[in-house]
């Protein structure tokens, strides 16, 4: 009974929507931007809708990144997929492998005749989302990279220069000890442990995360994060955990209160965390620095890699819809729109033009530290170790890596054994992914 009632309601809604003769073409967009970011995205979409009469993009919030992907995949299986879905970076290989489901962005732009210059985008970002031939498969929207935040007040109290973030891990260790001597409980903590301390650590030191150019070269890729330098680094963190030079505070951003409360004087996390820190760090001034590097590693610092999400286009809609998608993408990539988004959110500007515009507007001068992230990803031209990564089942692989990191840092497993285990387990998944997708690429 209730179902029929709802069915009638839905049908009525559909009829009303399709009613007017000058109907605009609806383009559903599923995204994972909650909160302020969601409000901002909604207003950007509204501006696009108001800017032209033909298309109507409908943004729908679908929960967290993984929920959004799952919902889109389930919808695809039920043939109810949206035209555009926002997918986080670790889902890239999954999306790429779904050849029959995904409409590559470069192809879409060509088919619809939309002017499109892939060179206008920051190579450090597009590299992550392009195929071996350099074709862009999805449109970057929100990208970030990890940086170092530090508590200037505590630096001052410990007799350190509050304007100078430690550049190397050796300096960071010395600073942390001075800070602890001055009464700080813990030197530093980290968010997103695998992303920051393994994936970005490797890229930053120009070390491979996996074979075949971190997976860009093919499905036969295997993880290599158990190299001597990664093992040494993770082992050092385990040593530091004992004296609280480093204090682990959980996955994702669970460690944030340690920095907000002044318990830890330094904190590594996404550049996108800038506004949250600004809102929460009430009692003290904070500064932003690049990620530290080990000075004895040749080629460090290289450049950091990104996280965040991109827009993927799903097949199964009419050509008119895709024309609208192309127009929408052009709008979202334009310099003023991107510069606005970048300044609002702390995410990276995806085009060079948006960066230049932001600089000219004087934003970086007024908000010191906000340009660290972009400088860091552009520090050197990306090598095959620092272009990004592309592994199937990476959501699970990251879970495996983080579980092993937790085992190492809690002292249960030595660093070498822990990372060996992570590599072994991850490779099982990569082998499975290879089998499942053989012959499709």
């Amino acid at each position: 009974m209730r179902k029929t009632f709802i069915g009638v309601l839905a049908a009525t809604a559909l009829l009303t929507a399709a009613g007017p003769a000058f109907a605009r073409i609806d383009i559903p967009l599923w995204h994972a931007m909650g909160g302020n970011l969601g409000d901002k995205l909604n207003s950007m979409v509204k501006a696009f809708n108001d800017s032209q009469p033909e298309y109507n993009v409908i943004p729908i919030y679908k929960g967290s990144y993984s929920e959004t992907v799952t919902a889109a995949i389930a919808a695809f299986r039920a043939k109810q997929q949206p035209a555009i879905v926002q997918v986080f970076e670790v889902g890239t290989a999954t999306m790429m492998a779904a050849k029959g489901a995904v409409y590559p962005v470069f192809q879409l732009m060509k088919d619809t005749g939309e002017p499109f210059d892939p060179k206008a985008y920051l190579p450090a970002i597009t590299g992550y989302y392009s195929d071996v031939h350099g074709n862009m498969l999805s449109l970057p929207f929100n990208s970030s990279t990890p940086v170092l935040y530090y508590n200037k007040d505590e630096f001052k109290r410990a007799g350190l220069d509050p304007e100078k973030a430690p550049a190397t891990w050796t300096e960071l260790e010395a600073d942390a000890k001075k800070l602890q001597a001055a009464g700080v409980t813990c030197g530093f903590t980290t968010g997103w442990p695998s992303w920051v301390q393994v994936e970005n650590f490797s890229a930053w030191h120009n070390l491979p995360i996996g074979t075949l150019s971190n997976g860009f070269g093919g499905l036969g890729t295997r993880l290599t994060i158990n190299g001597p330098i990664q093992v040494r680094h993770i082992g050092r963190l385990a040593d530091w955990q004992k004296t609280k030079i480093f204090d682990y505070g959980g996955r994702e951003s669970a460690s944030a209160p340690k920095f907000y409360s002044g318990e830890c004087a330094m904190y590594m996390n996404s550049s996108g965390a800038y506004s949250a820190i600004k809102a929460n760090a009430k009692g003290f001034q904070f500064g932003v620095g690049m990620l530290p590097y080990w000075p004895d590693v040749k080629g460090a610092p290289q450049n950091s890699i990104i996280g965040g999400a991109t827009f993927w286009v799903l097949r199964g809609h009419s050509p008119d819809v895709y024309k609208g998608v192309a127009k929408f993408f052009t709008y979202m990539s334009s310099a003023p729109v991107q510069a606005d988004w970048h300044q609002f959110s702390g995410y990276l500007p995806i085009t060079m033009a948006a960066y230049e515009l932001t600089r000219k507007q004087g934003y970086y001068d007024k908000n010191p530290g906000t340009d660290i992230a972009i400088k860091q990803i552009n520090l050197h031209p990306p090598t095959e170790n620092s272009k990004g990564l592309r592994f199937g089942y990476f959501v699970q692989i990251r879970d495996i890596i983080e579980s092993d990191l937790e085992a190492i840092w809690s002292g249960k497993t030595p660093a070498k054994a822990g990372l060996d285990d992570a590599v072994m387990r991850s490779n099982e998944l990569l082998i499975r992914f290879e089998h499942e997708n053989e012959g499709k690429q």
Partner: protein
Amino acid sequence: MVEHRPWLTFIAHAVLIFGAFILAFPLWVAFVASTQSAVSFNQIPMSLLPGGHFIENYSAVLTRGVASAGAVPVVTMLMNSLIMAMMIAVGKIAISLLSAYAIVYFRFPFRKTIFWLIFITLMLPVEVRILPTYGVVASLGMLNSYAGLSIPLIASATATFLFRQYFLTVPEELLEAARLDGAGPWRFFRDILIPLSRTNIAALFVILFIYGWNQYLWPLLVTTDPNYYTIVMGIQRMVTVADATPQWQLVMATVILALLPPVIVVVGMQRLFIRGLVEIEK
């Protein structure tokens, strides 16, 4: 009492008071947290006395909602929870009254088969067959609907089992008398069986309401449209926020609002509830 031992009685009271205190402590902390300002959580240790932001926090969640939970006002979520809990409780009672009636008071081919088919579901929580059930509901187009939220959870056969047990204890003379009066199956059901089962229905309602209200994983999966979020799952959205920390004062205000209705039901309808739980369930 068997004998008078004042010190034992004293210990009994002391243990009970201590137990009640321990049980209430997390709730007190939650209430205190819900009256604090956002930044007060960065002061350690947290205060154990209420702060001055009660009205501010509660009106914020009730009317505006919390951004990370899709900014649905808590009022909407409470409403959805209420609808879902009611549909589950009423739906379960209705269909199980009918099927228990059929199984006890009729003889028909496949009665045994149907009986077992239904009773297989007796103890199978939705959690253990979660992925395929989700698949089925998705392919029926029931995601983001009240029907999708509640109907799959009505499938459990617990209530049917209870009514069957109860009907079996109803004296046979009642049916004989009714048939002598010329009453058909519908009239017997409506005029005799339902009034007789009134207490059982009410007791079961309390338990099923709480069961429905407290559903978590299922609404988490089938609702991606914030307008269908229920309060218990909405809280999870508030606790897991990307690149930020939970706004504990708002989370806890929502927690308090989420637990009030079932607690009021349990405490207010205590007799009925205990009867339902202990006598029916056992």
